[in-house]
């Protein structure tokens, strides 16, 4: 029996066989003999999650545009499938051609979330690829990228290359370098030295790390003679309009998380919220032109048959010609029954009116993210919204017939006090009052307010990268405090989570190279799909830390002095450390920094050629 037949036998026995089936419309098939290199894009979570990810669509498209390379998709098999694969000696395979992952030239892994790290080790093991880069003299080159790549140290021993920043050009540079090296027949070490010269590439094996007696990092230096740079700068695509963007996307069978056309209208964000990593690492703002967006929308609708286009970005309301764009798209697609949606939580009124008028927006819950309960704390995190903004938004919504509001907050933000926590309940109470202020005959019956509270995880490359995470005991106490206050308000649904997953997330967000041992041990103990509540095994994680001598508190709940060498200091994400220090100090004083469209705030991204012109 060949591999494909063996796979099909297993599919009869698993929960969701369609996740491993392949053969979707617009998936790319090539003749293996016609290409010089084969690239496996591994998304370390399930098919349903991975197929909703825009970055993968972009890279899949841009690699497959090359006649000399073939990019195929690989997802983490769910636990039932993974166990069956092990029992039956079936290696991890690609969806398109069902080729074992270990037979590819290169495997690219996207790092979207720290809690998917054990899935990466699980995938490598299922593929039969040695976990540690140092143990691999042959087989595929492993590359990682994505937002978490800006602190790649917890994964450094497992990857050959780290691709920082925008992938549209960088991915081709890496493939070109690989093809050039393959021709020479030189050993892998030579490839690593060649790759270290590529714009945006960091090669972990070429650096030496020294530690102080107190466990902090003393220095991170390129190995002598390696030719690796002291600081690795991210790759930056300045012109998004000219950059590759898929004109065909795969249409999955079955429902995936976001089953629609995703149109990235711009990259980056100018708001400068201090807790937000995306807002820092994706700088500067780069818009795709309206003409290009309309052209892409046309092609994508024709190529997929989707009936919804989502205008994506970190803050879609900030697109400079948003009303024009939305209006034009609604005009073009109304007759074709294609809906236009905006995932952004900052919808300005002009736009809401445009959309409301023309396409009968379904009145699902209005989602707003005040993030913190008091103005003081919202100023600390530089979330430029006031209580008046919020009151105006919800009053408008209730007046127009909405009856459901979702409010998102974070618990454990730096400087947070009980007063800030109780402020969340005050806000919910005020939102409730807004509803009852609307005359009874005008408002929709059945008010629902959802207060959803997550636990703050301080991230690298943000002004809060020096801040301690709130201890789990304190998180639980404050969650209870808030719960008691919210219980007194009718019609409020309070959602919160146990803080243990966020605690582990905090360890790896700011972990150094030594945390890799704990990660590997946790995986050996059976941890996988840690972001899934029903799979997360806190006790195994604690056992792994214990056995590897890694103190999780050192990484999660310790406040760092400003002069400490941080494990990611040799990686340049665009903004400078000086800027982050300045923002941290302003945060502690509750001082705001304005949106940089109103004047440069000196974040440092201007150091990049062609940025912010």
């Amino acid at each position, binding site marked *: 029996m060949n591999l494909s037949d063996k796979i099909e036998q297993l599919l009869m026995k698993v929960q969701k066989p369609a996740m491993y089936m392949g*053969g979707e419309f617009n998936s790319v098939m090539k003749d293996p003999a016609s290409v010089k290199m084969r690239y496996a894009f591994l998304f370390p979570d399930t098919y349903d999650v991975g197929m909703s990810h825009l970055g993968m669509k972009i890279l899949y498209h841009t690699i497959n545009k090359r006649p000399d390379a073939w990019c195929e998709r690989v997802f983490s098999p769910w636990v039932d499938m993974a166990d069956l694969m092990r029992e039956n000696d079936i290696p991890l395979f690609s969806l398109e051609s069902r080729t074992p992952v270990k037979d590819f030239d290169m495997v690219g892994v996207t790092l979207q979330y720290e809690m998917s790290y054990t899935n990466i080790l699980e995938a490598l093991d299922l593929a039969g690829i040695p976990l540690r880069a140092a143990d691999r003299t042959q087989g595929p080159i492993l590359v990682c990228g994505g937002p978490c790549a800006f602190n790649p140290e917890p994964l450094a021993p497992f990857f050959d290359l780290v691709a920082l920043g925008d992938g549209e050009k960088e991915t081709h540079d890496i493939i070109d370098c690989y093809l050039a090296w393959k021709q020479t027949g030189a050993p892998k070490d030579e490839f690593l030295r060649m790759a270290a010269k590529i714009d945006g590439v960091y090669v972990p094996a070429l650096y030496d790390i020294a530690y102080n007696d107190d466990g902090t990092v003393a220095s991170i230096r390129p190995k002598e003679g390696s030719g690796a740079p002291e600081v690795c700068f991210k790759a930056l695509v300045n012109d998004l309009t000219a950059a590759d963007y898929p004109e065909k996307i795969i249409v999955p069978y079955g*429902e995936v998380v976001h089953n629609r056309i995703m149109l990235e209208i711009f990259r980056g964000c100018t708001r400068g919220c201090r807790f937000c990593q995306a807002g820092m690492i994706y700088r500067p703002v780069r818009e795709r032109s309206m003409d290009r967006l309309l052209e892409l929308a046309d092609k994508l609708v024709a190529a997929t048959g*989707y009936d919804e286009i989502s205008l994506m970005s970190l803050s879609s309301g900030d697109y400079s010609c948003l009303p024009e764009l939305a209006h034009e798209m609604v005009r073009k697609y109304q007759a074709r029954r294609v809906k236009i949606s905006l995932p952004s939580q900052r919808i300005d009124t002009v736009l809401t009116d445009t959309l409301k008028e023309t396409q009968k927006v379904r009145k699902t819950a209005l989602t707003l993210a005040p993030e913190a309960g008091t103005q003081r704390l919202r100023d600390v995190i530089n979330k430029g919204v006031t209580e008046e903004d919020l009151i105006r938004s919800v009053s408008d919504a209730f007046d127009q017939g909405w009856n459901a509001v979702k409010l998102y907050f974070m618990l454990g933000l730096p400087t947070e006090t009980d007063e800030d926590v109780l402020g969340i309940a005050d806000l919910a109470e005020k939102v409730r009052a807004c509803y009852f202020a609307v005359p009874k005959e005008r408002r929709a019956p059945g008010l629902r307010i959802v207060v959803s509270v997550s636990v703050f995880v301080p991230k690298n490359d943000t002004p809060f990268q020096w801040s301690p995470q709130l201890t789990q005991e304190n998180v639980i106490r404050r969650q209870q405090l808030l719960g008691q206050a919210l219980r007194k308000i009718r019609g409020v649904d309070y959602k919160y989570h146990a803080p243990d997953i966020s605690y582990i997330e905090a360890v790896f967000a700011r972990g150094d190279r030594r945390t890799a041992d704990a990660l590997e041990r946790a995986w050996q103990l059976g941890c996988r799909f840690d972001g899934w509540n029903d799979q997360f095994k806190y006790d195994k994680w604690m056992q792994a830390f214990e056995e590897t001598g890694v103190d999780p508190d050192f990484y999660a709940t310790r406040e760092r002095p400003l002069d400490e060498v941080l494990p990611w200091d040799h990686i340049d994400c665009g903004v400078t450390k000086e800027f982050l220090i300045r923002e941290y100090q302003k945060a502690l004083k509750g001082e705001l920094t304005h949106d940089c469209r109103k004047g440069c705030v000196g974040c440092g991204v201007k150091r990049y050629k062609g940025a912010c012109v």
Partner: protein
Amino acid sequence: MRMIVRFGKRARLRFISHLDLQRFFQRALNRTGLPIAFSNGFNPHPVMAFGSALALGWTSEYEVIDVKLAEDVDALAAKEAMQAALPEDLPVLEVKMVGDRTPSMMPLVCAARYRIENSGVTQEMLDRFRQAETVMAVRKTKSGEKEVNIRPMAYEFALTEDGTLLAELSLTPENTLKPDLMVKALTGEIPEGMRIHRTSLLAEGERGRRIPLMEKL
């Protein structure tokens, strides 16, 4: 005007559920550029009907979808448009145009033909089955399990030289015999590597003969 499309479901896509296939066709029809008629209401969707649902894991060369069009379209043009909108493993095999007043096709279905590989059924088992008047088997339905006599629902059956079982079995809302149930009744178990393939859907023809559904048009 209505467009009746016969298509196949090849091995690679045999794990798409019937529900997912319905959703998939909504998008596929949007891609065709054909003047598909949409339902009224808040969430308009193409007006379409499927033939009998194929079980997960089975393949087929006789799946039928009935789609309402808002304008007349030439059958050949429609076939080309459908082919372009479907993946390789859902091949378009036949397209016919019928008037809006043509009765719905699906109630016409009375039986189906199957090709069953690696069934483990022997000639001897088949002969015994043929001679029996009653063969009781437990059929699982939505409302529970029920013991039924499956023998009258098996119209034709034979083994080919290479041991493939061919069977023509009743397929109506009241009386349906699924090929896997027949195999289980014959052999006592369903072998792991068994492959079921639907070769046609049949309708009542003249003088009680059963003819392929598309020929009924």
